[in-house]
């Protein structure tokens, strides 16, 4: 939605032939609001003058399926029979006091202007304004009432905009008026500072007796999540989804809300691999324990999907202020370059939401190409901005490894590529590999340094806001680069009350076959613990075979639902106004 509400309202007013109610208030002949009292009340969730201050009454796109009949409620309601279970309607009230002392011969009528067919206003179980059975109702005369009259509003789609005027009529003449904007919620995507409600990981248990079967499992990761999160963690049976573990890639979850209602929206990726049915089974469906106030939508053509359409490549910063503009829900970023990028159907839609203005760093150098391979954010209550930006960093990785004994065995790295390894048996095999060093130096110079500068500019960060995560990459012939040291930047943040946990890959930069050598003796882990804000509880999980060697890490294999924070109608109106 890029139209100006000013232009929209002005155009609508002209079309409706009632310039006296132009919400711009620019018409000097407009009848006064006679006694200054508002004729429309939005309720306690709104501040004074909220009705006439954009975005006005926050409404909800009625896209969910509260009666579980397989049809969005907006469509169910089309014929004028309100879905009994519908819980997505916003309310405004015309107080009974407007009829007190009303002069004889006067009455009230409601007019709707703007995107009339994108809203419906209900009263007493009937549609009085907006879209109904193919028509647009634009005017309705109110009955005289001794009680407050309550109106319920639903919207067709995100950021639909209109305004409703209540006019006091004397014959055909409007002698008093009040009005309110109606704005449908934008889609807002979750960021790492929000509270966690539910976490999902695809469960790949150990099976069989062979070495590979024992090794190719994610039991340590599953057990860690279960121990830490309890019933806020749900393992997803891998055998139902063809062993597709990349649950971050399949869905991205956001929300739409109004003061009285919330709908979560699952963006279902066009990647369409094994987990394609998971949103329907595990989140939206009535048996999921989460629906029905959840919507599943897809943007783009699966036939044209590329790796960048996966949602490891769609991330959101915490709230930032950039060039004086507040982004209270953060900013969206996704990787790509001029030749390869996520489907425009989705990225254009996200840009149209305006509330989390997207930008695109370069990830074309990576084999998989996802932005979560090299950047993330973690909460930091001690920071002025409330978080730290985390980015992969090569010099720190070399510095740590060079301080170790070159003969130190690295059993996880030692095995061949067909046995979940990198063919590098010792620390020396890494630090003395000239080509590996040259390649990584180039990545730092050409990619990571400019990327850090880009994030500093786009998110208004200072050097103090950045954490440099030790990282090394290795190029794969015919593909691009992938993590050599398991990508710890590819992390998961869960917030439960004051408790914040971070789940990230165990780098195994130690003699991990020696049972006496644990994570507490891993020099890279020690560095990361020292680097991270001390308010975070870090959990280094074994994601080696199932994730790391398959070109992903912990974040790639995890997804979650979070609790909305802040009211967009209160804090983000400035992002939705204007051109």
């Amino acid at each position, binding site marked *: 939605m890029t139209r100006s509400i000013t232009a929209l309202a002005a155009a609508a007013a002209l079309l409706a032939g009632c310039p006296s109610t132009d919400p711009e208030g620019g018409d000097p002949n407009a009848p006064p609001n006679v006694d200054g009292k508002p004729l429309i009340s939005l309720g306690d969730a709104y501040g004074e003058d909220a009705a006439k201050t954009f975005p006005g009454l926050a409404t909800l796109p009625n896209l969910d399926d509260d009666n579980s009949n397989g049809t969005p409620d907006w469509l169910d309601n089309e014929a004028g029979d309100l879905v009994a279970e519908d819980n997505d309607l916003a309310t405004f009230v015309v107080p009974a006091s407007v009829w007190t002392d009303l002069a004889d011969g006067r009455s009230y009528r409601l007019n709707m202007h703007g995107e009339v067919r994108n809203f419906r206003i209900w009263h007493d179980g009937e549609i009085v304004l907006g879209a109904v059975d193919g028509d647009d109702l634009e005017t309705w005369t109110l009955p005289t009432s001794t009680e407050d009259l309550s109106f319920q509003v639903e919207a067709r789609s995100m950021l639909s905009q209109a305004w409703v005027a209540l006019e006091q009529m004397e014959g055909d003449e409007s002698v008093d008026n009040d009005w309110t904007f109606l704005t449908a919620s934008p889609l807002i995507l979750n960021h790492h500072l929000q509270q966690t409600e539910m976490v999902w990981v695809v469960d790949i248990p150990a099976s069989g007796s062979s070495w590979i079967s024992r090794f190719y499992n994610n039991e340590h990761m599953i057990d860690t999540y279960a121990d830490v999160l309890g019933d806020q963690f749900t393992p997803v049976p891998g055998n139902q989804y063809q062993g597709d573990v990349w649950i971050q890639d399949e869905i991205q979850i956001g929300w739409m809300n109004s003061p009285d209602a919330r709908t979560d929206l699952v963006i279902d990726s066009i990647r369409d691999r094994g987990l394609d049915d998971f949103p329907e089974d595990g989140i939206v469906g009535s048996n999921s324990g989460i629906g029905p106030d959840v919507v599943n939508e897809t943007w783009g053509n699966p036939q044209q999907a590329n790796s960048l359409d996966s949602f490891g490549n769609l991330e959101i910063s915490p709230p930032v202020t950039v060039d004086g503009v507040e982004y209270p829900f953060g900013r969206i970023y996704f990787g790509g370059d001029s030749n390869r990028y996520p489907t425009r159907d989705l990225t254009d839609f996200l840009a149209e939401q305006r509330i989390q203005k997207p930008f695109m760093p370069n990830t074309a150098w990576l084999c998989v190409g996802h932005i979560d391979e090299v950047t993330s954010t973690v909460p930091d209550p001690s920071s002025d901005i409330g978080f730290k930006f985390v980015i992969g960093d090569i010099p720190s990785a070399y510095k740590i490894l060079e301080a170790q004994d070159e003969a130190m065995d690295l059993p996880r790295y030692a095995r*061949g590529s067909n046995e979940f390894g990198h063919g590098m048996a010792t620390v020396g095999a890494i630090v003395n590999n000239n080509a590996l060093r040259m390649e990584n130096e180039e990545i730092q110079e050409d990619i990571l340094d400019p990327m850090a500068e880009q994030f500093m500019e786009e998110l208004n960060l200072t050097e103090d806001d950045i954490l440099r995560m030790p990282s090394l990459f290795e190029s794969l012939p015919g593909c691009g680069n992938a993590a050599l040291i398991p990508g710890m930047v590819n992390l998961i943040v869960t917030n439960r009350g004051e408790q914040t946990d971070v789940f990230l890959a165990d780098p195994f930069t130690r003699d991990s076959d020696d049972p006496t050598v644990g994570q507490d003796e891993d020099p890279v882990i020690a560095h990361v613990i020292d680097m991270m804000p001390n308010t975070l509880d870090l959990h280094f999980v074994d994601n080696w075979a199932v994730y790391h060697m398959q070109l992903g890490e912990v974040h790639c294999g995890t997804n979650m639902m979070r609790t909305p924070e802040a009211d967009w109608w209160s804090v983000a109106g400035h992002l939705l106004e204007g051109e």
Partner: protein
Amino acid sequence: MTNSRWILVALSLSLAPPAFAGDLAGRLLAVDASTDYLALRDDLVLDADLSDDALADMANHPDWRVRQQAAVALGWRHDPALFAAVMQAEPIRDRAQRLRWYDDAFADPAAFPAILERFMHRGEPLQVREGLFAALVERSDSWAEVARGLFAQEEEPSLRVVMVGSMRKAQDAATALDLLRLGLLDADPTVRAEAAVSSGWRADGALLAPELLSALADDQVQPRAMAARALGWLAVPEATEPLSALLIDAAPDVRLHALRSLRRLDVKQAKALTALPRLLQDPDPRVVKQAQKIVAE
């Protein structure tokens, strides 16, 4: 391990004792080349006049295809379950959609000839064949030689890229360098570019300096850029002059890698480059950064 199983493993690892070749080698080659492969292979397997010992004697034959076909015949005779399992095994897709096999059959040391047979003769889609080739790498002493043998007849450039790339870590230096030379002359620029990169990865890659220097004149950008890059990685001093000539290349990637390689070769010489002031104003910020780095060092 049973005796027959030992023979199978030995064949796949080329460890069997010296052997007599005779007409059998020709028959095995004919099977390998046949358009009616499966029928002829089954004839071999079921041929009661063809002894296991005769097949085992092929283990040191100089032609890898003979060794392979003998191993296949023995494998189907003595471990058909393993071979069938390899043929039927389903891969998993990694996050980049590459296919990888992590099952017991593929992990068996005796599976190499079965995987290779599937790769060569099953007629599967390109993506499957790429995954199967990856499964062959480092599984046998002869895999580099096999890769070289397959390279010449492989029609798919993306698969030739993977074959050339697999030479980065090949222990068999002569074979690896030979294949990389072929790669640097390949008809497809993506293969030539990967051959240049993989040459840079090898500790003995400087032995390919003449070919890499020639590649600096490639008419395609990426082979030219990657050759410039590899010559810097390998610190080939003869590259200084031709790399300097590339600093006016129209392609930013070529200018970038040429300049960085010159810095790596000798930063003092790089500081004296007459092109340096112009490169400090280059339209590509990466080139500017390299030039600034040279000035600052």
